Every structure is written in C-alpha cells, then in structure tokens.
C-alpha cells in the first residue's frame, strides 16, 4: 500500500469516527420528544442564554483581540514572546482549571473587593460571560494574528507614504485585506464560546433557568440519565457547530473577492 493510499485511508478513519459518533445518536432519537424538548421553556432559555452570552463574549474578545493581534503581528516589543506564549494557556490548561483559577481569584481579598464594589461574577450570567471570555480570548488573538501575518506590512508602508496615518492604514488597508480571516476567527471564537463548559460550570454553576447554557444542560440531563433529552441538545450544538464550520469554509475560500 502506497503512502498516498495510507494517508487517504487515515483521513477517512477520521470521518468514520466523528460521523459514526453522530450517527449513533439516532439510536436514542425520539421524534416526538425532540420537538417537545426543543419547545420546552428550559431548553429555549438555555439556547437563548448560550447564544446571547457567546455573542457578547465574542464581541468582548474581538475588541481586545484585534488590536492585540495587530501589535503581535506587526511590532517588536519587550515581552512580546511572553504574551505570544501565554495565548496558548486556554488550549494547554483544562477549562475547569482555568475556571478554578478564576474562582480562587475571587476568593482572595482583591477578588472579594472587586465583587463587592463591582460586578458579582460567581453563580451569575456575568460569570458565564467571564468564563467564555477567558477561554476564547487567547484563541481569538492567535487566529486573528495568523490572518494578519498573511498580509504583507508593505501595504501599510505604501499607505503611509500616500499620507495615511498608521490608524487609517490599519482601517483602510489591513482590516479589509484580512477581513475574511478575522470573520472566520470570529465565528470560530463564537463557536468555542458557545460550547464552553468546564470554566462556565466552575464559575457560574449549573442553575436551571439562571446559568444553564446548552453544554451545561447536556451535562445535567446526562447526570439525570435523560439520554433522549441529551441527544436533542447535542443535536442542537452539532447543527450550530456544523453551520459555523461551513460558514468559515465558505469565507476562507480563495475565490471569494475581498
């Protein structure tokens, strides 16, 4: 068997693995229950909560990620490699550990002071936002930086020789040129925020109709041995996730004009 055939075969193994897992869900699929679960107030609340918090967390991440990615992509400064390395933290550290770190922080005197004088994060929707924000920020920066690295900085230099300030060059040249990459990064960040579980349950808990996002709802239903209900919620997440992946694929297609 040639190397080419082996590699193609292995790529199909990946498809069979994930496809098989999704297919296996149909074993517990119940059409009647599917509609009931989807229409239930609790599911709709979880869905709405997940969509809203993921969107807000993504916007907050992007507000910091875009300028940070630009700085990391274009400039050389003290501490650059340190920042670049720490971006991987949400990837290498388990989300639960990340959530636990936040929990511990809010239990030290400074954290307690912040909660008392500012926003209450523990076991609230703000906690969900914080959990999604801290787990997605590093990834958002990494993805956007990759998109910006693709754009030669010579374009900005030319723009500046034509009279554009560095900020104007950024908004009129760099951003339009990497907008597909930034959009794709935004979608992936949003999908990551939507599926966030470990940090969310650690910081915000799992209170039904209060802090129960879709991933937490899945966990709760599974804990109660409600397999059929779990399947419905998993399908919702898979449906949204595949939609996002398809959208990203379309966006990053070379044939699409700027």
């Amino acid at each position, binding site marked *: 068997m040639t190397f080419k055939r082996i590699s193609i075969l292995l790529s199909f193994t990946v498809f069979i693995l994930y496809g098989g897992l999704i297919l296996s869900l149909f074993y517990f699929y119940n059409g009647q229950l599917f509609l009931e679960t989807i229409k239930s107030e609790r599911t709709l609340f979880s869905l709405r909560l997940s969509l809203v918090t993921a969107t807000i967390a993504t916007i907050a991440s992007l507000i910091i990620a875009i300028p940070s990615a630009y700085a990391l992509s274009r400039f050389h400064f003290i501490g650059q490699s340190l920042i670049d390395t720490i971006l991987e933290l949400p990837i290498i550290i388990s989300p639960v550990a990340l959530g636990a770190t936040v929990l511990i922080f809010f239990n030290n005197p400074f954290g307690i002071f912040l909660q008392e004088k500012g926003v209450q994060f523990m076991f609230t929707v703000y906690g969900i936002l914080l959990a999604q924000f801290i787990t997605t920020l590093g990834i958002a920066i990494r993805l956007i930086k990759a998109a910006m690295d693709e754009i030669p900085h*010579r374009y900005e230099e*030319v723009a500046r020789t034509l*009279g554009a*300030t560095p900020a104007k060059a950024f908004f009129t040249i760099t951003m339009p040129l990497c907008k597909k990459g930034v959009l794709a990064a935004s979608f992936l960040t949003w999908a990551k925020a939507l599926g966030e579980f470990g940090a969310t349950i650690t910081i915000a808990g799992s209170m039904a109709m209060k802090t129960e996002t879709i991933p937490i709802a899945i966990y709760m239903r599974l804990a109660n041995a409600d397999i059929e209900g779990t399947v419905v919620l998993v399908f919702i997440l898979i449906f949204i996730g595949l939609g996002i992946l398809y959208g990203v694929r379309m966006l990053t297609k070379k044939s699409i004009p700027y």
Partner: protein
Amino acid sequence: MPLIELKNIEKYVLQDINLTVYDKEILVLAGPNGSGKTTLLNIIAGLIKYKGDVLFDGRNINSLPTHKRGVGYLLQDLTLFPHMNVWSNIAYGLKVQSYPQEKIEKRVEELLEALHIKKLKDKYPDSLSGGEKQRVAIARAIAPFQKVLLLDEPTSSLDAQTAKYFRIELKALLKRFEITSIIVMHDLLGAEEIADRIAILNKGRIDQISTPEEILFHPNSEKVSEFVGMPNIIRCDRCKVLSTGLIEVTTGDLTIILPYEGTKISRIAISPHDIYISDTEPPGPTLNRFKGTITEIMPFRSLMRLKVDVRGIEFLTELSKEAFDEMELSVGKEVFVIIKLRRLRYAE
C-alpha cells in the same frame, strides 16, 4: 536649489552618507547588491529609524512621520492594494488626505490620461499585466501631489524592450509633473537613459556622483570603473557621416563604423564584453574587425580579461575561461578583435 539633503546618514551598511538632490532632478542610485540603495530610500521615506539628518527644502524632517513627509514611494514589488480597483488605488492617497471629491476625480482622471491607463480604471490589480501594474503604481505614488518620488527598481519586472520604452516615458512624466526623483537601478545602461545624475553606492558609501557621461568616461576610482564595466574609452579624431544612421569614426590608425544618432561624437565607450576575440579570421564582413596582439592576460572572477594592442590603441576585452583555453591564448599571440555595434556609448 537643493530639495533633499542627506547629512551624515548612518544605518545598517550605510556610513556617513552626504547627498544633495536638486529640485526637479532625477537622481539614479546605482551600485551592487547590498550597497544600501533601498535602505537609503526607506530613510528618506521615514520608514526606518536612522542616524543623521534628512532635510527637505532646508527644513529638518527627522521627526516627521512617513505620512507627513509627502514622499511618494514606488516599491519594487509595486504592492497595489488588491482589494481596490485601479481608480481607487490611484485615489487612495487623495482620499486619506481628505481632498474634496471634485479634486480627487480631476486628479485621478488626469493621471489615468497621462499614463494611458484610462481603460483599466475599473480593473483589479490581479487582472493587470506587469507593465500595467507599473503604470498604476506610479500614478498612485504621485497622485497626492507629491514633490518627491522614490522608485525602487521600477523596471525590474519588465522585459528589456518594454523597460526601455517605459524609461523614456517615465522620464517625460517626471519632467512634466516636475517631480524630484530618486531611482534605484541595477542596470547602468537604463540609468544613463533616465538620470540627470547618477550616484554610485558601494558598501554603504557614495563612490561617485555626477552626470552619466562623467561616470562612464571619467570614473573616479577603480571600483566605479569596475561597476560601469571597465569600458574602453576611445577618443575620436575625425567623424564622417556615411549615410542616415551610420558614421565613420577615425581614431589614430583605426576606423570604426558606428550607428549614428545625429550627435557629435568626441569619445566612444566600449564595454570589454562587447569585444570579441578570435584566433582565426572569422568569416563574414570585415566591418569593425581588426588584427591585434595580446599584451596582458588577467583572470577576472569566472572570466579572463585580455589587453590587446590594435595599431597602438589598447583594448580591454573579456571572454570565458573555456573560450580562452580552447584558443590557447598567450601574451604576444596575434588575434582578431571584433567590436559589437549595438552597445556602444558616446560622449558629445
């Protein structure tokens, strides 16, 4: 009147560069790779930090950022903005400097006309040819009424024939819009066509700066002479126009036929690699073919350089080591010297 003055500039390979470029002048920076030509352009544009002073119209602009210097810059790779069509590329500088829409439209139309690219205005850069991109990039660089234009190897992406016409057009354009220009060029032949003055940069220092004629006929050092190709400079004693396009030039006992462009010739520069050597009499016409004697043999990089005495006039010639070995050439041997016509250069 000096428009750009560089004083004691130092950066990377550049050492203590002092240079004055006059108003509306076209100065070509020539020199081998790594001599600091592009670095010097980046310094003038304010794209990199440097030691020393840059003055525009007598005013020190060291602290001015790139976008306030008013210097157009045509990069070697052109870098047209791929997400904008030709019209928007040219209008970009005017837009970011908040010119009124009416003035933007008038200026863009003027440049589209001047560079003969009107029909391209709606096209995107990826659908343009190398020559078209070049024109658009020049139009864009000078659109915001820049007084100074820096051009880094503007003809590098063009074939020899297109480059020649482009240089003629570019010179006319720069003179028409009265733009002071500094052009980096490798090709000395091209530089001679376009430059008012040429500066030869070598290992971060300016070896010579003068008119193309002066550089070619009076190189001030061995290095400059080497860079311009160690031409044989032949003094002309008598000239006789033979017919349209041909002139007979006599120097000592030697008579050479040259293409005639209607200029009075006082000296001829012949590059060593434009002189062929043969140990046997070549077939064909005897035009510009002479018998001579080898007086000196010098290895030069992968080539051999020979000095050949032809009726009291010494010619420096170049040939490959293989050809040298094959002909078993040695000092004192008689050879035929054949002068190629097309690359001769003259001084009035």
